[in-house]
């Protein structure tokens, strides 16, 4: 029994940077046969990147590979595609479903691995003309489902299924692969009901008994404690804590996760003064059908002149709130601004009510990538408020006021320190951070009364981050504009906002002043995760 000592999986000194932006540093992780480890960490802690490296994702190679070594059963491996990883016995259940909607459960479980029967045509023209052996398929699917230990209907069409069963179909698909040794589950319980989640945990225990090792990523910490042998906590690209599950508890893990225990509370530049303004925006019973960010029954009140933060883990619905209010996704409920009701599902009405929105989808929604900065900055103001236009022929036609446009663009280029060759450069050619600044300039140019900013610092470097946040604060101070910032980064919200609402499971789990402790926020974030 030599493999008593050789771990099934060893990851040594793994590091990864995306074009100089270090996301993983010196990660060591080892895993025995049949062992279950829980991997936890905030969004952006590097869990997904680490798993992608292990699974041989294309995206890792395209961005320059990784440092360190991965050993499987003592043998060094370097997967050049997920298919290699699968062949080596690694299975992964992703957060997004990878299922064919019109196929039955069993067809999906055995997708592209269908049992086949040969015939004359396939001898002549190749094995793709083999007949799919449906009875054998039924058998194999049945076996995989039994192995999982959760009953699902193997003849049901996927699109008719409750979402939990889709998740189980994916797991059964991995289990139907005979050489499976290691299964990565990326937040599998996020879409499950409580009872389904319990069934899944039982199923994980079963896998472990059969010798399949499991890496279990979840935000529900109780589950980790219930099923895992070991807990690994990641933060900012480091493994910050590793301990046997029985030696730890939820508050401790939470503390490790949100961390920064040495730092003292950094509230809004020390100006913790409560802004006792009038309520300017009132949101009641809001629901938003934004795929992956569903919002359920949200009630909020934002006061005039404050910076209001909305935080929470990814996929919990925080992004759905501004997108729903601004009419980009189907929504319902009541939104009142300065006592007037704002109709939902109508972006134009929101803009007319002098809302502005800086979208998290910079390149898709935020910018006209192939147009100049001038156009990008002035276009919405021109379109919505008829500014930067000169009347001609007694107002019959209006021309663009190129000079005014250039002036305002130049003003923002200077104020926000946008690095560009001129105000006529194309938006596509700028770096991510500078594109984000252009998005802000565009929103500022609208002179809004209420500004929504969604993930303002996503994917931009530290220097630009500080500048963007400072610009927002300044805009709020000088123009008395109410700002709602939605961000995954709690620290950023705590330094910029007056009050922060934490969204969990599509609902507001609580609203705290920015000076509250990290643990309080952490507890709220995980409170209703679904």
């Amino acid at each position, binding site marked *: 029994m030599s493999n008593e000592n050789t771990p099934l999986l060893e990851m040594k000194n793994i590091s990864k940077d995306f074009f100089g932006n270090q996301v993983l540093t010196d990660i060591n992780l080892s895993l025995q046969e049949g062992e279950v480890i829980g991997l936890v960490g905030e969004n952006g802690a590097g869990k997904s990147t680490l798993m992608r490296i292990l699974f041989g994702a294309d995206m890792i190679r395209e961005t320059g590979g990784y440092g360190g070594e991965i050993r499987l059963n003592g043998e060094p491996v370097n997967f050049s595609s997920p298919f290699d990883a699968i062949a080596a016995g690694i299975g992964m259940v992703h957060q997004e479903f990878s299922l*064919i909607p019109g196929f039955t459960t069993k067809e999906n479980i055995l997708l592209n691995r269908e049992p086949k029967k040969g015939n004359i045509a396939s001898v002549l023209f190749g094995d793709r003309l083999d007949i799919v052996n449906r009875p054998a398929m039924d058998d194999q699917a049945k076996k995989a489902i039994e192995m999982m230990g959760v009953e699902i209907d193997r003849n049901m069409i996927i699109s008719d299924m409750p979402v939990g069963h889709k998740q189980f179909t994916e797991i059964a698909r991995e289990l139907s692969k005979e050489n499976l040794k290691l299964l990565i589950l990326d937040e599998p319980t996020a879409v499950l009901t409580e009872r389904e989640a319990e069934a899944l945990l039982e199923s994980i225990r079963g896998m472990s008994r059969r010798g399949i090792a499991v890496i279990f990523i979840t935000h529900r910490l109780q589950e980790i404690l219930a099923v895992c042998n070991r807990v690994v906590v990641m933060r900012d690209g480091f493994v910050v804590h590793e301990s046997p599950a029985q030696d730890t508890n939820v508050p401790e893990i939470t503390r490790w996760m949100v961390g920064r225990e040495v730092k003292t509370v950094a509230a809004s530049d020390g100006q913790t003064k409560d802004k006792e303004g009038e309520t300017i925006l009132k949101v009641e019973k809001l*629901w938003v059908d934004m795929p992956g960010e569903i919002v359920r029954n949200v009630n909020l009140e934002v006061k005039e002149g404050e910076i209001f933060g909305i935080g929470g883990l990814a996929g919990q619905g925080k992004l759905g709130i501004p997108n729903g209010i601004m009419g980009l996704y189907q929504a319902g409920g009541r939104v009142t601004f300065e006592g007037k009701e704002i109709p939902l599902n109508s972006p134009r009405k929101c803009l007319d009510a002098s809302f502005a929105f800086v979208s998290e989808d910079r390149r898709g929604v935020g910018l006209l990538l192939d147009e100049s900065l001038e156009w990008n900055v002035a276009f919405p103001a021109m379109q919505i408020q008829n500014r930067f236009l000169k009347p001609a022929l007694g107002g019959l036609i209006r021309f663009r006021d190129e000079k005014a446009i250039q002036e305002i663009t130049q003003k923002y280029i200077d104020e926000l320190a946008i690095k560009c060759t001129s105000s006529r450069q194309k938006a596509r050619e700028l770096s991510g951070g500078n594109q984000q600044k252009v998005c802000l300039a565009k929103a500022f140019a609208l002179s809004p009364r209420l500004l929504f900013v969604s993930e303002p610092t996503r994917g931009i470097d530290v220097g630009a981050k500080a500048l963007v946040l400072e610009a927002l604060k300044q805009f709020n101070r000088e123009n008395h504009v109410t700002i709602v910032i939605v961000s995954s980064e709690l620290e950023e919200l705590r330094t910029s906002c007056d009050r922060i609402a934490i969204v969990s499971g599509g609902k507001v789990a609580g609203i705290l002043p920015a000076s509250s402790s990290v643990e309080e926020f952490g507890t709220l974030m995980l409170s209703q995760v679904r």
Partner: protein
Amino acid sequence: MSKNSTVRKRGSLAAFLRHSSVPIMFIIICAICIPLSGLSPSYLVNEIVTRMGRNSFLIISLLIPIMAGMGLNFGMTLGAMAGEIGLILVSDWQIIGIPGMVLAMILSIPFSILLGLFCGKMLNKARGREMIASYIMSFFINGVYQLVVLYLMGSVIPIKHSSIKLPRGYGIRNTVSLLSMRQKLDNLIPLTIKGVKIPVATFLVVLVLCLFIVWFRRTKLGQDMRAVGQDMEVARDSGINVDRTRIISIVISTILAGFGMVIYLQNMGNIATYSSHSQIGMFCIATLLVGGASVDKASIGNVFLGVILFHLMFIVAPRAGAAITGDSMIGEYFRVFVSYAVITLALIMYETNKRKTKILEGERLKLEQMEEEAK
């Protein structure tokens, strides 16, 4: 599959009516026009049976690309051209009857494969816009076809018989007579029931094709095509070669369309060299849609229902039109007009149905919230 998805929809009767609104509309049109036209039932049955033999094969060639998610595909027009080239060559070589037809089909295969590969490659680059891309491509390839038939045949490609050559010495005449193989397949096994002539052999060929389609759906390749048709990303992640699968579906479609064109033209008895293929794609697609197919779903049943309804309308509409207005041209006008209308309607309905499903999702969320509040 279709059964399951209909059951799923709540208020299934309303959903059924919405989904089959096109066939229902045609049944109503026919029901009004038949008595007005004053045509006898035996005449109508005779005509429908003839047209079913003539058109079914061509329309069935559309099914496989739909299965592979490439929508209503005008790529079949390319196959039709290949079939015509086969027939032109065979009639010059004076090979007559069934052997001529078989040879023409065999000759069409290499052309169909070549054109199918080209079309498939192009459509892989124009994902999501296959219908319009293939439509425009059929015009482009029509130009290439004209170059070959109008200039190269007789000058580069030897054409012996002056009966099909233009007087100037090269190029093919506007009409090529297929008298030697006219309805040879239809009459191979003669059968007349109560005055209705039934093209038994043609029907047998169509039956074989139907069996092929049913068999093909059960193959691994068919399974892959259905997977690719529903979600390309997921199919790719599971290791299916998506691009190749899509190209194969187009190649199969062009080959079948080539065969179908030979069958179509043997029934007609002549080739209109420069126009036979030009509207065939549109009429086939319209027929399929009238049979209740949609952009992403079509079955053999849709083909036959479509042929019956669409052609019944063609036969009775001119007479009915003449009876009402006194002008028989109204029928021809009606035919083209209705074809375009049907295709437009089907495309719009496809999009609105997609949007409706999305809105339903939102409604579900709203209901959930209300239920929660009631607790």
